[in-house]
């Protein structure tokens, strides 16, 4: 191993202050409505709220009952209502309904809406239209950044993805710019900012705009973060999601959990070894109590037992989790899915993969899975052959419901699932050939023709950047060689590869072709006031900003890269995502 060349990774900044700021501001806002009050909380703010405050803090500040937004208040509700919400129009209507119902029944109450992270003008417009403007007071809870782990900060805005990339709405760019401003003021100034993508560029520009007005008090302070890398999620990446798992138990997993902190980045195959080693140690430590005299036993009980018990609890939790993941993994479906994914990535057996997807659909296996595989096929092949597109779509609608017509339309608009335009395929030649040979061979020939005839962006990028590592021999997942280990050695997430390349080159030089294939909008700006010497600690701390979400696979890959290069990555993402969540965001539901 090339351990010798590595430097110790720099320390991470402390993000605990972000939680404290958010909590204190919330407390302040609650106090703005003195006295007993009921609090209505937006469903998707609940879990973020749990991470920074708890019910007793709320109770301390006179919160009496807690409701979920969308539930009607009980008859014995208090005289003051406080709504902690995202700036959404339908939530405004819900609030207006409550206020108007109270008015009708002659009930007088005080109402306060706390918007997080900010208020939208359109929300006030709805309040005005509903005739409750003035009956309610509005405030903003500038809760932009939620540290999820020592190196992950989430904006908890999953809707960013759909709002920006599907609807083309720029409403979340301002919150991103403000989040950057806050981080810059606490941990900056950032020495160098890189970015790619239209959204990344706009966020950067708005952020700089905000910075220019502020007095930049951060200047002269010792920076803790050296580089920033902004990246659009959009169409940039869409890897398979091999490492995902269903969590039926809700546990707060982060680096404070000693066991988890050691296994989280390992490939699944090496986790077992680790866990079993760990449990053997544990057993050995327990066993020591045999043959102890009374005093030794007393010491053991008072000093070590608690720790051991704690470790024991954690271990059994993780072993249980592994079991449940294994159950899913060993299902035949899972293995086949992985196989199909890998074939798609490498671009062989397209025909076979297509019929694999078809079967998935016919058997009504999870609608999200089917969609995901179709999107993967489309991205790797630069769109589906019209014939395949039509037949897969028809079967999909038959299996999962005709209203998915809208889902297909959305996926087409966002570019995740498209149809090759007619001119690009060699249908005529193909049909002649297929008359001469069997179905199977015809499929292969079609593939060959297509790869000749069409230029696939994905293939070009993949080739250019070496996203699919060439395998000589077995890929040893226990001794990862590169970032591809997160996908069992099959694929390096594109986003991570780009970050690696740009940091290595300290810019975009030599990546012109890749940039072109990714639709450009790349930038690289240095802050001249910040010392740009690699010796400086902060120069080895990189803030990776994912606009539209970031996956745990990407996080694991970059953590690996950091370990290799002696640097640390901090992740700022609009939300933690995975392919299933991206697909769900494309599904049309009732208004």
């Amino acid at each position, binding site marked *: 191993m090339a351990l010798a060349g590595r430097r110790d990774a720099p320390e991470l900044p*402390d993000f605990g*202050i972000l939680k*404290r*700021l958010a909590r204190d*501001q919330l407390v*302040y806002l609650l*106090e703005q409505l003195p006295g007993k009050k009921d609090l209505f909380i937006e469903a998707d703010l609940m879990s973020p709220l749990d991470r920074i405050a708890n019910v007793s803090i709320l109770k301390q500040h006179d919160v009496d009952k807690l409701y979920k937004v969308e539930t009607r208040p009980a008859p014995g509700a208090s005289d003051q209502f406080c709504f902690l919400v995202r700036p959404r129009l339908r939530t405004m209507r819900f609030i207006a309904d409550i206020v108007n119902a109270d008015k009708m029944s002659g009930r007088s109450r005080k109402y306060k809406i706390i918007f997080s*992270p*900010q*208020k*939208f*003008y*359109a929300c*006030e*417009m*709805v309040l*005005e239209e509903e005739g409750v*403007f*003035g*009956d309610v*007071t*509005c*405030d*903003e809870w*500038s809760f932009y950044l939620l540290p999820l782990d020592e190196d992950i900060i989430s904006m908890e805005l999953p809707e960013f993805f759909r*709002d920006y990339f599907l*609807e083309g*709405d*720029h*409403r979340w*760019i*301002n919150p991103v*710019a*403000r989040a950057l401003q*806050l981080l810059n*003021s*606490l941990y900056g100034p950032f020495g160098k900012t890189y970015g790619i993508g239209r959204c990344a560029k706009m*966020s950067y520009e*708005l952020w700089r*705009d905000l910075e220019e007005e*502020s007095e930049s*008090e951060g200047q002269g*302070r*010792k920076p803790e973060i050296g580089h920033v890398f902004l990246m659009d999620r959009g169409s940039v990446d869409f890897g398979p999601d091999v490492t995902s798992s269903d969590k039926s138990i809700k546990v707060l997993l982060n680096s404070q959990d000693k066991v988890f902190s050691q296994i989280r980045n390992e490939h699944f195959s090496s986790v077992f070894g680790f866990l079993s080693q760990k449990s053997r140690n544990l057993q050995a430590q327990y066993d020591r109590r045999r043959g102890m005299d009374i005093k030794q036993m007393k010491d053991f009980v008072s000093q070590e037992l608690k720790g051991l018990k704690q470790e024991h609890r954690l271990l059994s939790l993780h072993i249980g989790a592994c079991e449940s993941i294994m159950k899913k993994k060993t299902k035949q479906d899972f293995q086949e899915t992985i196989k199909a994914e890998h074939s798609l990535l490498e671009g062989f057996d397209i025909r076979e993969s297509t019929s694999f997807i078809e079967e998935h659909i*016919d*058997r*009504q296996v999870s609608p999200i899975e089917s969609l995901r595989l179709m999107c993967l096929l489309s991205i790797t092949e630069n769109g589906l052959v019209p014939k395949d597109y039509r037949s897969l*779509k*028809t*079967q999909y*609608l*038959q299996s*999962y*419901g*005709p*209203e998915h*017509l*809208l889902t297909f339309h959305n996926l087409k608009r966002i570019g995740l699932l498209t149809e090759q335009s007619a001119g690009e395929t060699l249908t005529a030649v193909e049909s002649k050939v297929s008359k001469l040979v069997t179905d199977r061979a015809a499929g292969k020939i079609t593939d060959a023709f297509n790869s000749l005839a069409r230029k696939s962006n994905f293939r070009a990028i993949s080739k250019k950047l070496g996203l699919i590592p060439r395998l000589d021999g077995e890929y040893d997942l226990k001794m990862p060689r590169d970032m591809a280990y997160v996908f069992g050695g099959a694929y390096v997430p594109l986003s991570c590869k780009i970050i690696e390349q740009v940091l290595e080159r300290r810019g975009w030089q030599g990546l012109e072709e890749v940039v072109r294939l990714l639709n450009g909008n790349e930038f690289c700006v240095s802050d001249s006031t910040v010392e740009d010497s690699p010796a400086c600690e902060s120069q080895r701390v990189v803030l990776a900003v994912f606009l539209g979400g970031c996956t745990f696979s990407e996080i694991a890959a970059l953590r690996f890269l950091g370990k290799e290069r002696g640097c640390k990555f901090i992740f700022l993402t609009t939300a933690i995502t995975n392919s299933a969540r991206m697909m769900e965001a494309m599904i*049309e*539901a009732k208004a």
Partner: protein
Amino acid sequence: MSRVRADEEEYWHSSKFRAFTFDDEDDELSQLKESKRAVNSLRDIVDDDDDDLERVSWSGEPVGSISWSIKETASGSASSLDGRDSSLQKGSSSYAALPKQASSYSLSSLFKGRNKLPSFQSLSDALTDTGVKSYAPELRRPKAEYKDYSSDWSPKDTVRRMQRGKVCSLERFRSLQDKLVLLDEAVAGHDGNVITAVLIFLKRTLRREILFRELEVRQVALCHLIHFLREMGEQKFLLDLLRFLDRTEEVALSQYREHLNIQDVEKRREFLKGCIGLPFSAEDTSHIQDHYTLLERQIIIEANDRHLETAGQSELFRKYPRKASILNMPLVTTLFYSCFYHYTEAEGMFSSPTNLKKTFKIPDKQYVLTALAARAKLRAWGDVDALLTTKVLQEYVRLVEDVETRLNLATKYKCHDVVIETYRDLKDRIQLTAYKSKVERGSAEEEKIHSILSNVQIRWKN
């Protein structure tokens, strides 16, 4: 570093609401520097509610120069223009400036930011004689010291102020030229919230056709308006816009989307019927047609089966009560349902699997897969056998080279397709016609025979 952190932590835990000031020459001050810096950075992010003076509704409605407490009690009049309360009436650009009560300093004041607009910054800088860069003291300054510059704000400044969450009057942008400059500035500012706010103003103050015409060349703004209309549920306006833009497919999809909000199945069916004529692509039109037909069938099946179930005469329904209604289920689920409860029904019945197969052109493979699952669930092994036999045998029988043997085997195992195709290849019209009696009435096989017999291109040998 870590020592500072520890102190800071202690501060944050202990301070709660204890009042303090930055101009205090306290020793604590130095310790608080870090936290203060953090908090100050929040200035902009936090809405300054106390800056009442600057509150002019962005839509131009008077929100006023009066403190929030009054507004709260004014119960709704704040947004009315009835002039009952003249202080709520906004003059063109000047405001009654009520000096605000000096608020006591608390942690809360930390969150109150100073106005950060360049012009304001210099103004306040000039007024601040203490060199200390602290924010709390400014809140004490009577509001009257601020000048109102609203009428001087350029479109760019207006957009900037709005981006920072300030309320801004847009009413003075009256000429089309001014409105468009404002919109373009908003788009250039990259803040969707502001873009939408400007669009709401434009929508209110411009005739549709003019707004549409201008948006046609402003794609980013256009996206925002479409998204806004969709979120507001302003369907009619949205459709008008899409029609104006000639986006016919989107018109169709937007209308079709509405069906998701219709709960009543009869109404939904009627609505879907109306969707068939919408300008979808040819491919989608057939999907919509299928959707309508499917729901139509489901309504019929549901009514019958509910009746059967409540009457309690059908053993199948008694033994396997339905878990849910079949309404609004996908086609494959409906097929499964019908294979489960209505497997043996004649093709003429809407609820029969063969009828579904034919109506919706369900591929053989899909049909067999679903039927197998349903019959296996019922443990109807005979049906499973038959399904497997016909499917698998057919493939094998087809491969038998000797025509005589093939015909015998195919007839014996009722591989209709093979028999029919063999007679066709033998050009034996008599045998083929005779075979009609062996297949079910109205079945796909019968139709196949008919179509072969009526094929004028075949030169029959008899």
